[in-house]
């Protein structure tokens, strides 16, 4: 009996299509709003420098064997010096950076703007969908699915007898929310700001502490053993030359 559930065409015209259209329009609107609110923020010299120091120290660690040991020792001392080395972080300053990040009103403002442009439209649309379209079976996907997909596709409908391939309106909303990213990148250009998942990643990465990675690099440099690779190259060069001649 579940198989011959017939969906009214009015549901298609008044639920399925409006929902998708509204989702697209909201996505576009959000893109422009966030574009308006985005403030170009100048990178801080200290942070840039720390990033560059880490790159350089990583290079040094990775290819230390390619420079003479005298040069390596000089660099190691320069990076890991306890007084004013580049990788040395004075104690107590690490805490400071974190605190400064939160006390900086610009930073907090930026975060709030990002959050506003993300959370407010989402709650509003969700409430709107819930209010007008709750409980509809909006669509049917053309292939059968196992029971595990029920919570994904039939959110908001509590009948266990309906076949899983029917999609409820609320689930259709969720599918649209996450599935329209490809469409957005098509109509708004590659780097559109509506990428929610990416933004969430950024949020969790917030509070990243550069001094920690500086310390890690320093430890890495400390334990590295320098073994000049160049003497080996002489033999290898000889071998290549011999091969060339023969």
């Amino acid at each position, binding site marked *: 009996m579940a198989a011959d559930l017939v969906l009214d065409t009015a549901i298609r015209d008044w639920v399925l299509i409006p929902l998708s259209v509204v989702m697209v329009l909201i996505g576009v609107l959000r893109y422009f709003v966030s574009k308006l609110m985005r403030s170009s923020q100048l990178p801080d010299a200290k942070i840039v420098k720390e990033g560059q120091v880490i790159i350089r120290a990583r290079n040094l660690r990775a290819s230390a064997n390619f420079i003479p040991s005298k040069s390596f020792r000089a660099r190691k001392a320069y990076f890991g010096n306890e007084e004013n080395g580049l990788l040395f972080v004075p104690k107590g300053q690490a805490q400071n950076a974190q605190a400064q990040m939160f006390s900086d009103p610009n930073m907090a403002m930026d975060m709030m703007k990002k959050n506003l442009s993300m959370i407010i439209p989402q709650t509003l649309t969700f409430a709107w969908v819930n209010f007008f379209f709750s409980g509809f079976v909006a669509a049917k996907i053309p292939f059968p699915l196992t029971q595990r997909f029920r919570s994904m596709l039939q959110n908001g409908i509590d009948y266990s007898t309906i076949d899983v391939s029917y999609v409820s309106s609320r689930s259709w909303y969720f599918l649209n929310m996450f599935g329209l990213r490809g469409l957005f990148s098509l109509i708004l250009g590659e780097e559109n700001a509506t990428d929610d998942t990416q933004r969430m990643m950024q949020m969790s990465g917030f509070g990243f502490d550069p001094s920690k990675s500086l310390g890690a690099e320093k430890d890495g440099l400390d334990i590295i053993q320098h073994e000049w690779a*160049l003497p080996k190259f002489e033999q290898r060069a000889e071998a290549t030359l011999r091969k060339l001649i023969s």
Partner: protein
Amino acid sequence: MVSKTEETQVNRLENQVDNGGGGAWEYLCLVRKLKLRRSDKVLKHGLSILNDSTKRSTLGSEEWTLYEQVAIAAMDCQCLDVAKDCIKVLQKKFPGSKRVGRLEAMLLEAKGSWAEAEIAYSSLLEDNSMDQVIHKRRAAMAKAQGNLSGAIEGLNKYLEIFMADLDVWRELAEIYVSLQMYKQAAFCYEELILSQPTNPVYHLAYADVLYTLGGLENLQSAKKYYASVTDLTGGKNTRALFGICLCTFAIGQLTKGRNKEEKD
């Protein structure tokens, strides 16, 4: 770095465009993406697009990028009138833009009015002290005026913050070599080797510097680096082969008369 496939693609497109085969815009995009310096071609083909209003309008907002690209290419070719026109168009479109301000300062520099360009660059730096391009331009300007120590100072200041910038290390190394400050140049080349340990060009330059410095230890190191170049290029680098010969000869001269164990 430009990979092999990209290079062949660029050359193929360039050939095609030169023979009137179309694809000029793709060629310009690729040149911009790979940061190549083919100013004469960019100027020629970019202008042909810009002068054709139908072609220009198909670009949409990319039009302004093309104006910028052509302006820079024109300055490189000393076609200052063309550059001036391009910058004028951009200025009308984006009044007060810093990116256009940078172009104007570059135009002043291309004209050779150093003092004015310096003022323009400084005022731009006041707004954004982290602008890498402007720092580099100032160093380049100092070099163009023959003020090599000024250029060195600028580059060193730049490297204090952006110390992972390879091109700047390389430029600095070359300036040091031209001033015969080989120890400093050696340091710069070591830095380059560290970041790209399999690039034979840096090994070769480092070996040259070491050989020029002289002394037994340096000569032996130089020989090793020449050997590594030979290995990395598969024995096809004549300069490296000649370098090995010279090093061996010089080491032989220095160690004449000593006992054989030290020779090694």
